[in-house]
Structure formats: C-alpha cells, structure tokens
C-alpha cells in the first residue's frame, strides 16, 4: 500500500484510502510498536460500568488519554481509584476501530503511594531475611549431580510446567516430576505455596523447583512474601527459584540455593544431560575392557612364567630319576647270577629244579642239569 503523502502527486481517484484502511493501518502500527508499558498520571472520572469494566481518563500537565480496564482485571484491582489519585497504570495503547479512538487498555492500576508502601514492605522483609541469614552464600547447597525425581511447585495452569516438562524430556527422559499445583498470584497464593513447600519435605525427591512462567508484567508478590521465603528456606532438599520475570529478582531467588531466570533454565539446571551420561557410560565400558585386557595380559605372562618353572622343575626331577634308574639297573646287573655264569661258573640243578649246593644233594648215578651261561647241559654223578 502506498503512503498517503503520495496522494499529492496523484489524482485522489486513483489511489485513495478508506477510513477503515486508515484506522486499521494506524491500529496495526500502534499495537505492534508498543509493548506493555507503565504510564504515570492522575485519575480523571473513573466510572464502573454495569458490565464490570472501568472507564477513566489519565492526565498529566500536558496531555490526557482515555483508558479502560476490562472486568477481569478490574475485579482484581478492587475499588476504583478516587478522582485525582496519582497512579501507575500498566497497559498497552490500542485503537478502537469502529470509533477510530485511541485508548490505553490497562491491566493494572497502582496508586503511587501504595507502590511506595509496597517498596517499604519489600525492604523490611529483605532486611529481616538477611538478618536471619537466609541469603547467606554459606547456606547454599549444591544441586545433586544426577537427580532422579524433582518436585515442582507452581500453577498447573501456567506455562512453567509445560516448559519444565519439555526440557526434562530432552535432558533426562527417565525422570520423575512431581507437580504440586498452587496459585502463584492473587489471594491465597502465599498460603498455597507455603503449604506446597512443606509438602515437598514429605516427598522422596532430590530437589525442588518453585516458580512461575511469565514476563515483565507478572505479579511477583507471592515470591516476595516473607512466609514463602521462610518456607522455601525450610525445604530439606536443594531448591531452585524460577520466577520468569524479565528484570526483577524476587526474594525467593535470593533464598533458593540456585536462581534460574526461567522455568526452562531451572529444568536445565535440575537434570544432568542423559547424552553426557550415555557418553560417560561408553567411556567406562571402554576403560573396563582395557583394564581387563591389561589384567589378562598380566595374568597370562605370569602364567607363562609359572609354566616355565613347572617344566623346569619336572625336567630336573625326571633327570634325577633317570640317573637313579641307571644307577640301580647297573647295580641290578652286577647282582644278576647270569653275569656270574658269564664268568665261567655253572650251577647244578636237581631234577626238581633246585640248586644242588652240597655233596649230599647229589645222589650216586642220579642225573642232574648244569646251568651255564648260554643254557643247560645234562649230567650224571659217576661216583661219590
């Protein structure tokens, strides 16, 4: 679409903007250019409509802007501020298309005096907690290296749980997340968070994340509450405070063992990376195999040495035996009667095979045998 400035050199009939185009374009520019902002001003004529919405003006010395606050936020804000009250208003500028009106849509209205009081309150709590040592760095516990179960204290309606689940699934898929659902802002949030934190002490978990998601406009009240801070300090496992606020640090951030900028960052800090652990397991397996190979090499070398010694021992034993046998057989040889016969002796044997050793053993005319070195010779006694 061409810019309206170009109309001056063109005929209006060729290139003309409709009112709708104009307002819609202005709206798009305004509504995309402005983030949520705080505006300071004085209340003019705040009216509560039967629908529950608030309509009011906001002015300062130089200008004025029409504001509205929708029912839901108006209900949370309580009583409409009186005429002339100086306030901070959080909201964003819009253009109301059907009327082409510029408006500021407020989500929160905070009397500047109340903010001063809130700041004083925060300072008082901070001092008290500091005096009791709750911010002491020596109190900070390290997070477990390998958490298996983690408690999460937050609102199930918020984005925090979803972010934590997503990161956990990626980093440590065998994890267990135990969520304790609490309100994180508004009435009852403080008591609910305190109760949830006490409940954490009854769970078998390795650490606790407390927090909420959100951006710059979120209400941190509960996370700056003294009661919540003291309940957090009493949690027996290490704690991570994860209040997803863009700029501010909440008091729970100071009390917790670890502060995470967002719930996702808290989950990153809570879990080891399973891919690192898988790599480490692989490394351990390799080192174990190498270690065992080293042991077996050592053992087989030793076994080799032992075997050599065994053979040597056996050999010398056999050697000793062999010489002994040779000696013994030489002795046996020497004793053998056959060797005597070799030398020319003969042995007379009776008919019954007995050696005839005396004269009386030989009967007259009786036959006998003479045993000589190479056999026997028949013989007879001629005379006695």
């Amino acid at each position, binding site marked *: 679409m061409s810019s309206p400035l170009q109309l001056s050199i063109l005929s209006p009939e060729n290139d003309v903007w409709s009112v709708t185009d104009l307002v819609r374009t202005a709206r798009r520019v305004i509504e995309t250019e402005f983030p949520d902002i705080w505006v300071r001003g004085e209340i003019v004529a705040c009216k509560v409509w039967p629908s529950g919405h608030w309509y009011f003006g906001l002015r300062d010395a130089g200008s004025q802007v029409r504001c509205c606050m929708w029912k839901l936020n108006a209900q949370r804000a309580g009583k409409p501020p009186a005429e002339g009250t100086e306030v901070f208003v959080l909201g964003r500028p819009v253009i109301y298309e059907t009327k082409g009106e510029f408006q500021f849509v407020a989500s929160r209205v905070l009397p500047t005096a109340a903010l001063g009081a809130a700041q004083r309150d925060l300072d008082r709590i901070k001092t008290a907690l500091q005096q009791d040592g709750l911010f002491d760095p020596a109190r900070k516990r390290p997070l477990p290296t390998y958490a298996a179960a983690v408690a999460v204290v937050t609102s199930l309606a918020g984005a925090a749980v979803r972010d934590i689940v997503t990161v956990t699934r990626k980093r440590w898929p065998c994890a267990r997340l135990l*969520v304790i659902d609490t309100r994180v802002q508004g009435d009852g949030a403080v008591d609910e968070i305190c109760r949830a934190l006490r409940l954490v002490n009854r769970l078998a978990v390795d650490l606790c994340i407390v927090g909420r998601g959100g951006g710059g406009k979120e209400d941190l009240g509960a996370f700056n509450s003294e009661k919540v801070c003291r309940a957090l300090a009493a949690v027996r496992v290490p704690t991570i405070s994860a209040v997803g606020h863009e700029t501010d640090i909440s008091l729970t951030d100071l009390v917790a063992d670890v502060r995470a900028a967002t719930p996702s960052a808290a989950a990153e800090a809570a879990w080891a990376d399973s891919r690192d652990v*898988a790599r480490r397991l692989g490394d351990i397996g390799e080192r174990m195999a190498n270690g065992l190979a080293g*042991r077996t090499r050592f053992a087989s070398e030793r076994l080799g040495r032992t075997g050599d010694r065994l053979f040597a021992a056996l050999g010398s034993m056999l050697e000793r035996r062999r010489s002994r046998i040779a000696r013994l057989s030489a002795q046996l040889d020497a004793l053998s009667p056959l060797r005597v016969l070799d030398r020319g002796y003969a042995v007379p044997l009776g008919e019954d095979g007995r050696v005839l050793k005396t004269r009386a053993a030989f009967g007259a005319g009786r036959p006998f045998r003479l045993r000589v070195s190479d056999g026997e010779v028949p013989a007879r006694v001629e005379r006695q």
Partner: protein
Amino acid sequence: MSTIADDLTRLEEIVRRLEAEDLELDAALALFEEGVARLRAARERLTGAELQVQKVLEEAGGDLRVVDLDG
C-alpha cells in the same frame, strides 16, 4: 533400588580397580562381570524409562496421593 548415581559411582570404582596394577585375574573377572551388568542396567535405566509427570495431592486426612498427568 540403586540409582544412576549409584551405578556411576560403583562403575568408576570398578574401572579404577581394573586399571590398578595389583589385581588377581579372578578378582578382575568378577569386577568386569559386575561392571558389565551395572553398565547394562544403567543404560536401560537411562533409555528404557518414560518421563513420569505426576501431580501430588494432599487428602483431607493429610495423606498424600499421586496421580499421573499427561506429560
């Protein structure tokens, strides 16, 4: 029930002892066997289990009840 942390601690110990010089073969084999079993268990634990997302509720009597949430 042992945890991954227990497994890793014990596995590191096993590796240290296997890498040390003064170990009998029998002891080394026993350690290696234990190491392999632990390694397998740790791997299964790491990859086998599903992410559990649960909600903790406190009953009126003070008892705790845990219900599964859709992760």
